């Protein structure tokens, strides 16, 4: 091989790589920001009594089929999120289960439904824009007519939220969309609407954060007023005993933040919520992709270098015998 060709090619390739690397800082992407009118839920585990009215209301509002986990199939008894269940209440149980919201010999409830991440992995993963985050409300929606059923969102979500109907010839993804279809009738998330204790509360993330701050100033064990339904809606507040909150508000920092925020008396990992870093995986993944492929600069530069070298080295088939025999 002629050294000169190789040298030139190396130079061109090096330049291409350098271009790619140079574009790196500009392409690095941090976590996304909370949309201006972000909507969300507040789940306060200390208020939840485990009645599962929210599970039933969710089924009805979203027209989802029942799911059975008992031998006699009398009523809907989902144990986890699934293709048929968008919202579920789970219980943490320990020892004798004497006291609520206690780790030792205690119990607590947790809600599982879409967290509506500020920077969702499912939206970043989806190759066909079937998963979208509303630029105004931040609600993460799913469009089955766009979906190809690759299940990258199912695999990517750290909360295990998007589910898939494996038993269907025409399957789809199932996930909570914060009842956006009910907004036009002046209604809101069914789970919050029916919650008798206000454990699940609907509102703007700004209002929810204010409410969280208020609850943390309350004195545990004393009586206080707790809103129900929707923050900023008609007053449905009622008196209840203040729970012993942990300092940690789940969803405030985790994974770049989520629009469902949670308060609890027991650590969140006991409630089945993963300990996640503050940086979203979507930010990491997209930084990588944009560094390599931003503006297609690096690929085009490398292609140029490769074409230059290949042009010298590729001989038309007919001459091949002689060319490669030298």
């Amino acid at each position, binding site marked *: 091989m002629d050294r000169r060709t190789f040298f030139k090619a190396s130079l061109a390739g090096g330049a291409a790589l350098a271009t790619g690397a140079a574009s790196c800082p500009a392409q690095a992407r941090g976590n996304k920001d909370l949309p201006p009118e972000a909507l969300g839920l507040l789940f306060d585990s200390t208020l939840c009594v485990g009645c599962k009215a929210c599970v039933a209301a969710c089924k009805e509002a979203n027209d989802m089929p029942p799911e059975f986990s008992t031998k006699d199939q009398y009523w809907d008894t989902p144990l986890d999120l699934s293709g048929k269940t968008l919202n579920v209440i789970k219980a943490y149980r320990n020892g004798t289960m004497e006291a609520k919201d206690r780790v030792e010999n205690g119990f607590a409830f947790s809600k599982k439904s879409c967290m509506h991440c500020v920077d969702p992995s499912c939206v970043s993963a989806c190759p066909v824009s079937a998963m979208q985050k509303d630029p105004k409300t931040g609600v993460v929606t799913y469009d089955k007519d766009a979906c190809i059923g*690759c299940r990258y969102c199912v695999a990517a979500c750290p909360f295990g939220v998007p589910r898939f109907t494996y038993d269907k010839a025409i399957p789809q993804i199932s996930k909570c969309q914060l009842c956006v279809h009910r907004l036009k009738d002046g209604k809101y998330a069914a789970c919050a609407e029916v919650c008798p204790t206000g454990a699940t509360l609907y509102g703007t993330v700004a209002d929810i954060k204010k409410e969280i701050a208020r609850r943390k100033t309350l004195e545990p064990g004393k009586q206080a007023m707790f809103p129900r339904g929707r923050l900023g809606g008609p007053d449905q507040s009622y008196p209840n005993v203040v729970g012993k909150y942990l300092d940690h508000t789940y969803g405030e920092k985790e994974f770049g933040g989520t629009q469902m925020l949670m308060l609890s008396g027991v650590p969140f990992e006991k409630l089945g919520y993963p300990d996640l870093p503050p940086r979203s995986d979507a930010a990491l993944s997209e930084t990588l992709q944009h560094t390599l492929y931003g503006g297609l600069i690096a690929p085009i530069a490398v292609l140029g270098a490769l074409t230059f070298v290949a042009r010298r080295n590729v001989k038309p088939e007919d001459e091949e015998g002689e060319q490669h*025999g030298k």
Partner: protein
Amino acid sequence: MANNHAHAPAPLGGSLLTPFTLLLGALSAIAGIILAYRFFYGLGAVTNINDGYPWGIWVAYDVVVGSALACGGFVMALLVYIFNKGQYHPLVRPALLASLFGYTLAGVSVIFDLGRWWNFWHIFWPGYAQVNSVMFEVAVCITAYIVVMWIEFSPAFLEKIGMKDVKRKLDKLLFFFIALGVLLPSMHQSSLGSLLVIFGQQIHPLWQSGMLLPVIYLMTAVLLGFAVVIFEATLSSTGFGRPLETKVLTPLSRIMWGLLASYVALRVLDLLWRGALGTAFAATWQAFWFWVEMACFIVPLATLASDSARRSASKLFTAAVLLMAGGMLLRINGFLVGYQTGDGWHYFPSFAELMVTVGIIAFEILAYIVFVRKFPVLPAAQPATR
């Protein structure tokens, strides 16, 4: 090289109906029947995938491993046309053919796994296409590469079907397609690793290399390309009763060895840097499979260390098989063994699921046999025995 003209590719000829091809045909047919069932009754009716393991072997093996095992054509093109190592030219066409089938089948098998496959075109359609998705890059790039490979390979059959003019014109432009044929697999083979970045800590630390994932997957894809060329050259020599090509494979394996050494070094340094190596000594299945994977890379590194070892056809073949297993395990480990999405989820492929994968491999081999017998692929040579 005086015997150069003997290297011009020629069809092998011979009978297509043998017990072996019949077996391959039967296996392909069984896969076809299972797939028909899958399209009527859903993915759950034939596979064991679930919401904890939404991707099974149809993704991890058929696409991720399958396309990596089909990197022979890419690596040979890189070596011959970019690094101008003309002596490996006889290996290009057979490698390219195997890649062509490997990739085409990997591409087609994506459809089997897609729940809403009729929307597949959305990936390429402006308005639907979501360019931030790693999956988008993988899909577009693999599709483009399959097209490019058919173009690259077309000289082998254009002449046969009487399109000499097209062939002549194409010959003049071939260098561009060859350049694309080196760029595209570099892009998507690395991106197959990048797919795991967004899984974050759902991937066991032994395989969650973050920003290094694309480098690790690309390096092993090239390694697999080398290994597969050695594997296929040896098999088709014995299978079709042709002389062994050890003379070409020995220098080839020297390049492969250098790359292997740098890969093992990078892999270990990455684990050390991230402080993940400790988890390799825990009593877990992940740790077990990690060591099996690493052994598949480290053993060939030791056995092929000397030039004399690289002249032994059997040592070369064994090393190639080990490397293929290693590259395969890296991918299976990353996508399945090391994928941890919470307690209570299990996955092991069902029999029907496995038979589809087996059927796809059988069909690939069958198509390869038909092509080399009918079209000028393998270098013409006097059969050693016949």
